[in-house]
């Protein structure tokens, strides 16, 4: 425990990465600073092309930052080549070795480190069991489904017990059930092994349910870092609010507020009444979704918003209603 508090995890300091391209340099990662605690489940969340993979590659040592530094437990790892970093990656494209069996793929890292054979055999067996591929050890990667390949890639990285495990959209090819199981499995692994997980995903539900903290990225920048709850409840920018969950944005005046910026609120935070409220509008659609019902309301200013209610309300399309939103649930974004 003492050791854990002494080590300071992964510190990324003002790291930028610029790629040359025919249309001028591309800033894939722009002046990013992050501190990731030991044994944290840290998620990078953001739309396609925002620089998530590039940031991971710099941590792994596969790309060299154009500027900035990366410290692991107070040591600058910039001079270390990828093969000397205690970091392993589960690649977005899996990158399994096609000429090796599943077992040989998983054993590769330990073999390269010169671990004794008995230790390797034991660890590989455990890793195979962990990803539920006990009977597939002698297969070649091409003989596996996409989801199975992804699990081999996971086992191949985990078996080395790195300090940091980088996961680039590592559950995306799995079906819903297996994905949920693997999410729980990953969380358990992270708690039990003490490995720091840096997880990249597009999927906000996955990010919210698994992460200790999330960094939301936008065009090479970090838009916000915080716990899932902080990010959901107090998004720093409109981009974050939009990206995580659904968020309505309307002019302050539409809600009868005296402000010249846009105000946001979550569909589940607002409700409506036929009596007095914050802004007036008419119900345009009612979408029954099973657990919740969505009401699409057109405000008097012409803006369309979505509300969700757990229980169906006694209203019909074209009814006039007013919004009711607890003031502390209103989102005022700086940008």
């Amino acid at each position: 425990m003492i050791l854990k508090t002494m080590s300071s995890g992964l510190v990324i300091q003002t790291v930028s990465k610029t790629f040359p391209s025919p249309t001028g340099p591309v800033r894939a990662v722009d002046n990013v600073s992050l501190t990731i605690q030991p044994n944290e489940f840290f998620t990078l969340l953001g739309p396609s092309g925002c620089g998530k993979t590039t940031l991971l590659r710099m941590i792994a040592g596969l790309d060299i930052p154009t500027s900035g530094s990366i410290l692991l437990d107070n040591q600058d790892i910039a001079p270390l080549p990828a093969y000397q970093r205690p970091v392993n990656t589960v690649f977005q494209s899996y990158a399994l070795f096609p000429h090796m069996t599943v077992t040989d793929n998983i054993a590769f890292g330990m073999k390269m480190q010169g671990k004794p054979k008995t230790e390797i055999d034991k660890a590989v067996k455990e890793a195979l069991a962990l990803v539920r591929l006990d009977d597939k050890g002698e297969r070649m990667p091409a003989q596996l489904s996409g989801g199975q390949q992804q699990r081999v890639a996971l086992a191949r990285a985990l078996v080395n017990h790195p300090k940091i495990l980088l996961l680039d959209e590592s559950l995306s090819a799995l079906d819903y059930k297996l994905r949920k199981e693997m999410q729980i499995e990953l969380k358990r692994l992270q708690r039990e092994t003490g490995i720091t997980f840096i997880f990249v995903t597009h999927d906000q539900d996955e990010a919210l349910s698994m992460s200790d903290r999330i960094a939301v990225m936008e065009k090479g920048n970090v838009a916000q870092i915080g716990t899932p709850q902080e990010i959901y409840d107090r998004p720093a920018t409109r981009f974050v609010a939009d990206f995580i969950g659904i968020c309505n944005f309307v002019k302050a005046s539409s809600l009868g507020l005296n402000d010249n910026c846009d105000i946001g609120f979550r569909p589940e935070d607002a409700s409506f009444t036929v009596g007095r409220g914050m802004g007036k509008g008419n119900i345009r659609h009612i979408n029954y979704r099973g657990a919740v019902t969505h009401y699409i309301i057109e405000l008097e200013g012409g803006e369309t918003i979505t509300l969700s209610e757990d229980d169906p309300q006694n209203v019909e399309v074209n009814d006039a209603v007013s919004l009711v939103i607890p003031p502390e649930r209103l989102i005022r974004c700086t940008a």
Partner: protein
Amino acid sequence: MHGVRNAAPWLLSPFLMIMGVFFAAPLLLVVGYSFMTAHYPGGVEFPLTLDAYVKIFYDTDFDGNKVFDPSFLLICWKSLKLAGLCTILCLRAGFPMAYFMATRPPQQRNLWMMLVTIPFWTNLLIRTYSWILILRDEGLVNNILMSTGITSSPITLMCSDFAVGLGLLYSYLPFMVLPIYANLERMDWRLVEAASDLYATRWQTLRKVTIPLTMPGILAGSILVFIPSIGSFLAPQLLGCGQQMMLGNKIENLFGQGGDWPFGSAASVALMIIVMIGLMIMSRRGGIKELV
């Protein structure tokens, strides 16, 4: 469906015909000749006989006795040795070249490829002659060595195994480079990154990932170098001054001045058998792995 199936043999017939005329017929002719009797100074006649194959091992002395004569076998051995050596050297030199080319930016690769194929713009005979100008006693190498004072008298480079080997290496290197390059260029370099992420040094990555994945190219290159170099004719003739005879020269000699067509044919069959054995050794993947 029915029509397509009926058409298939018909569509194949040009291919079968070409194979028949250019491949099977000459081969059968050679095999056939090798079992016939020599008609000096050229041509064959009946009866059928195994004489030609006996000549591979035995010579007939003045009294008409058969005595064991290893000279032909020695030529076979020398050809095998030189061709094998040439293949290994081409691989040693060609793989790094191909690797270098495949790791250049895409725009530059075509330029490098063109540079590798430049020798093909000139006839092999002329290129082999130009090696004589380089290697002979008054040639480029000796001129440089003597004018810089490294040696006082010319070193004899010509007419040696060294000169023949150099000529072979030079002639066939592009046949090794190009298939390996084609293979490396298609390779998924993300696998190399994955290997280095998994603690493999660059050397380990090369041995465990890059070379195994390039094996088809290495195999193709080795075959393309080994086959023509074992039957090579020009380099031993010109650079070996005819003294360092290889199988190709022996066969030429038997069909030409020697006038013994059946023996020439039997020698060709022997060459084919040696090539087949060589290919069998190579295509056992381990064989190539040890060469690298």
